[in-house]
């Protein structure tokens, strides 16, 4: 019952915010809707017992990629110099409020994974008993340790390839955005 309520609430919010992203008139509004969308998807990951991916979603998507988008929107759509233009509708405390909400979400993920790893350890978690972390303690999430174990054994070559991809993308972005080499 509780799972159903959480799922339907998240589903409605995620889809509504997705529609808001593609229908907002201003690109800045789109980016802000996108942040909330990513955070809600992170909550959905927590309900699906994927705490590590949820944290990565908050850090990389909502923290990194969206800031990159905001920078580009500001660079591209700047109509007036920011010194000469102050928005009268500006509400300074909303930023603080949103930052507090993100903090609360990160804390909730931590608390949830601490609580749920007790139950996960009892049932053996997602992996078999052949990994050294099958009896991991209740302080950290089982999910993170198991994912790290799989990532550095079975998927080591793809992992290294992903790092090469990120290096190439970084060099490419610098070359593209730089005026003169």
């Amino acid at each position, binding site marked *: 019952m509780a799972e159903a309520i959480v799922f339907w609430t998240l589903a409605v919010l995620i889809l509504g915010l997705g529609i808001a992203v*593609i229908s907002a008139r201003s690109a800045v509004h789109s980016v802000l809707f996108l942040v909330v969308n990513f955070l809600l998807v992170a909550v*959905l990951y927590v309900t699906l017992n994927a705490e590590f*991916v949820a944290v990565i979603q908050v850090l990389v998507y909502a923290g990194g990629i969206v800031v990159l988008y905001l920078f580009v*929107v500001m660079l*591209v759509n700047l109509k007036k110099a920011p010194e000469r233009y102050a928005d009268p509708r500006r509400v300074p405390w909303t930023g603080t409020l949103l930052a507090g909400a993100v903090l609360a979400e990160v804390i909730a993920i931590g608390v949830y994974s601490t609580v749920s790893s007790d139950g996960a350890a009892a049932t053996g978690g997602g992996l078999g008993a052949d990994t050294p972390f099958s009896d991991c303690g209740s302080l950290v999430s089982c999910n993170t340790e198991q*994912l790290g174990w799989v990532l550095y054994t079975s998927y080591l070559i793809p992992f290294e390839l992903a790092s090469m991809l990120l290096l190439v*993308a*970084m060099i490419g*972005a610098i070359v593209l955005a730089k*005026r003169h080499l």
Partner: protein
Amino acid sequence: MLEITPLHYSLLSAALFMIGVIGVLVRRNVIIIFMSIELILNAVNINLIALSDQLQDLAGQVFVVFVIAVAAAEAAVGLGIIIAFYRNKETVNIDEIQIMRW
């Protein structure tokens, strides 16, 4: 309705995917088109995580980590292209970006 099955997650993923595709096809601002692509990647990730939970197999979550890495690379390169293009043409309207040369 009250029982949440992997089908529900797949339907949510499909709906979000569809919203992203509509955004790519309908909007003219290149930046919003890139955001729609991020929505599409998120829809795929929801599917992978839900099936990973259902099958009790961590391969899905590993794949999501790779998808996020690819999305970060795509955003960096794509936004670099937008910056370079805006410097030359002073526009981000996809209708004005139709010539494959400077």
